[in-house]
């Protein structure tokens, strides 16, 4: 499966300047991609566009070669396949219980309760949350919250996962745990796109680094390759 951005321009309502200025990008399932760039370069906007929260006013977003439809069922289809983990897990965890929070996505997709329960158990195991399912969200540590937020998105079994600086606020002990989950996810065939300020992490972890500047792709390529500098 492929997620394709073709000359995507996105403008925030009420603002004149575009947040994305003609982004051309192809992302394939199973890829490990790092998204780098300074604050305001368009990383978050790109993620919200990929998920259909923001709609391009020019250009197109293709899922598996077909343009995304922005009606109810089209958006549901897009969000089933493209998940976003936000920077601050407290902005994402709406439910007071971990178990219930994770179950929101699957139920929104119209799965039965039994199926949703199975999904919750599955991702809880995947993210190491089995013991924490009954815990109130506010009683989790920072790393646990991040994993819970991640699990809530993974329960929808996306093919593309955008993670917005999720490793930034984690301490050096928690970071490898979360990265390890992302690695396993990529190995299972999901594309993982990690936005980060950390160049060392980007070049060590990713197969491809995409550098955004002023709302468009400034450079992209294999980290460390000579073509990177030109």
């Amino acid at each position, binding site marked *: 499966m492929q997620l394709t951005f073709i000359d995507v321009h996105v403008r925030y309502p009420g603002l004149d300047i575009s947040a994305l200025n003609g982004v051309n990008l192809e992302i394939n399932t199973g890829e490990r991609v790092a998204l780098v760039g300074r604050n305001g370069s368009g990383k978050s906007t790109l993620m*919200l566009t990929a*998920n259909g*929260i923001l709609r391009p006013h020019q250009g197109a977003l293709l899922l598996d070669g077909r343009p995304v439809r922005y009606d*109810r069922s089209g*958006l*549901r289809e897009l*969000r*089933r396949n493209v*998940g*976003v983990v*936000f920077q*601050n897990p*407290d*902005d*994402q*965890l*709406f*439910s*007071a*219980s971990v*178990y*219930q*929070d994770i*179950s*929101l*996505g699957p*139920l*929104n*997709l119209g799965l039965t*309760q039994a199926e*949703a*329960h199975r999904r*919750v158990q599955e991702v809880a195991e995947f993210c190491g949350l089995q013991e924490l399912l*009954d*815990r*109130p*969200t*506010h*009683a989790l540590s920072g790393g646990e919250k991040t994993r819970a937020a991640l699990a*809530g*998105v993974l329960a*929808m079994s996306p093919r593309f996962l955008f993670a917005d600086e999720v490793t930034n606020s984690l301490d050096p002990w928690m970071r490898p745990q979360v990265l390890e989950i992302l690695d396993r996810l990529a190995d299972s065939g999901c594309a993982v796109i990690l936005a980060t300020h950390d160049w060392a992490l980007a070049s060590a972890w990713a197969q491809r680094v995409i550098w955004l500047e002023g709302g468009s792709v400034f450079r992209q390529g294999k980290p460390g390759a000579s073509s990177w500098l030109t």
Partner: protein
Amino acid sequence: MRQIDAYAYSNRISKLHPAYKVGASLLALVLCLTLNRPLASLLILALMLGLTIFWAGVSWRFVLTLLLTEGSFLLAGVLGVAISVSTMPDAGGAALGPFWVRSDAASVWLALNLFLRALGSVSAMNFLALTTPILDLIELLRRLRVPEVLVEVMGLTYRFIFILFDSLERMTLAQEVRLGFGNWRSSLRSAALIGTNLFIDAFRRSRILETALQSRAWDGALRVLPRKYNHPFQKCN
């Protein structure tokens, strides 16, 4: 607040179906209020304290401290029942400035009864608060067919209380290190500043959360799976 909440989800009987715990405390409350006798109140007080400390395994120090605080509130309240005040000179009273204060055995007895009754009821409510996670109470309301919108707003309120409390603590600390609570004027100004920022923070969060929910294919209702409980006489899983 965090301590009560922490006991609620970490005590020995936290996974027990909430209906049993709610039933027990409501029964105790109703008995305490309707029997309305000091001895009954004392028995209920002892029973509820026992259940909280020995069955649920909540620290006795914490339970008693909580009860003591509540008792001191109650004391101020029953005071009004124990004494009579009037501006008329009163043969049986004592003069206190322009007022005549009096009290008699019946009033004191009434106040004592009231004090014990309230203390017994409070211990029943403490049992509920310390053993039952609020999540379970909300879930129970959902199962009792309380309208979904109310249940959702309650759940969200509970979740946000802790988020906003974190913000409040951060902001208060930030003001304190700048001596924001030095005197009355600056205290009031700091309080207003914190209140304002808290409101803006709450509003901003509701916007971001909406986006985050949309990204999970949310379409209006907050559907989640029901929680699972243990029942007495059944092996815990």
